């Protein structure tokens, strides 16, 4: 995750097209990833991403730098995504709950022979993440954006810090169970008997 330079933000606030393009270029993959986490459909995620950047443009003048720019932007995306689901009458996404979702019955252990292909690894990882509860999925997605601190994730999701820690811990535990064949340590060939 790359926090945009302060100068880029200031120039974008002044309407500089190149700076706006830089912001879009540097943030679109993160915004799209968050959108996919929330709406789970590529077309919807694209719409949400576009909507988020246009809203960003309109609200850019109000950004005063009190928080990280990325935290501010991702919070905007999350709120837009939740509003979008609500307008459609879709089941509401809950960010403050902590359901104990059992993944063991959906473990991917049986798919072990398929795990050698990188593309399949990607699919398996994303499928395992997709099966997590909403809050854990979003917290983990933000967590894996390199520089996203727990405090920033709490700010984006609007939940207490300990709730974020719990979401991430539980999410990782479930992922580890689902993806056990992929994260098992390599067998040491030369180990003594």
């Amino acid at each position: 995750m790359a926090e945009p330079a302060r100068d880029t933000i200031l120039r974008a606030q002044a309407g500089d097209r190149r700076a706006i393009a830089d912001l879009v270029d540097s943030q679109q993959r993160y915004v799209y990833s968050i959108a996919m986490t929330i709406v789970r459909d590529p077309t919807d995620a694209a719409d949400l991403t576009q909507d988020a950047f246009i809203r960003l443009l309109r609200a850019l003048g109000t950004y005063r730098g009190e928080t990280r720019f990325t935290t501010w932007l991702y919070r905007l995306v999350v709120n837009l995504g939740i509003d979008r689901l609500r307008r459609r009458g879709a089941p509401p996404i809950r960010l403050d709950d902590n359901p104990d979702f059992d993944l063991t019955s959906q473990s991917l252990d049986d798919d072990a022979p398929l795990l050698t292909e990188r593309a399949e690894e990607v699919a398996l990882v994303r499928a395992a993440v997709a099966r997590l509860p909403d809050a854990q999925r979003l917290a983990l997605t933000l967590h894996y954006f390199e520089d996203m601190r727990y405090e920033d994730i709490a700010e984006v999701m609007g939940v207490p810090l300990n709730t974020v820690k719990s979401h991430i811990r539980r999410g990782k535990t479930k992922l580890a169970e689902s993806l056990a064949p992929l994260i098992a340590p390599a067998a040491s060939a030369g180990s003594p008997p």
Partner: protein
Amino acid sequence: MIDRNTAERLDGEAAGHHLGGAARSPLDDAAERRLDALVRPRLLVEPPTEFRTSLLASVLRAADALDAERPALHVPATSSVAASPDLSAWAYPAVAALIATYLAVVGSLGGAAIRWDWLPVLVEQLGAAASIVGGGSPGGLLFVVLQGLAEQAPWVALLPLLWLLWERDRALPQRQ
């Protein structure tokens, strides 16, 4: 990153938040590192190429539309006018009150027991000295004029402030 998060995880577990039990044993550090290495690069979803192009075009069109709605958005930030705060409608009554107070204070001092008659004498002597040194230069004349103004209309000294406020106020409509 991993070290900090691991520390936070351990901190959370120490606080009693961990999921104990055989079914959900906490991840050990090595397993967590392998999980992070596996998931991190695979979780970021790249938007389709055609969408990236159309997204940028849409955002730039929105920027144009926004400019049309708010043309003053592009006033350069380096402009001193743009950087100055808005002028309150109370500024002019405040300046008027300031001038009135100033005149009242000057008037009361003039009528008080304090003697100010040494001031014109000093000014005359300075003017005479200036004319001797400068040979009756325009500087001497300016000095006399300033002396007259200081005696007869001391409020003139506030005009630069009034002019400054006027200029700031005049610039306001250009920003709206």
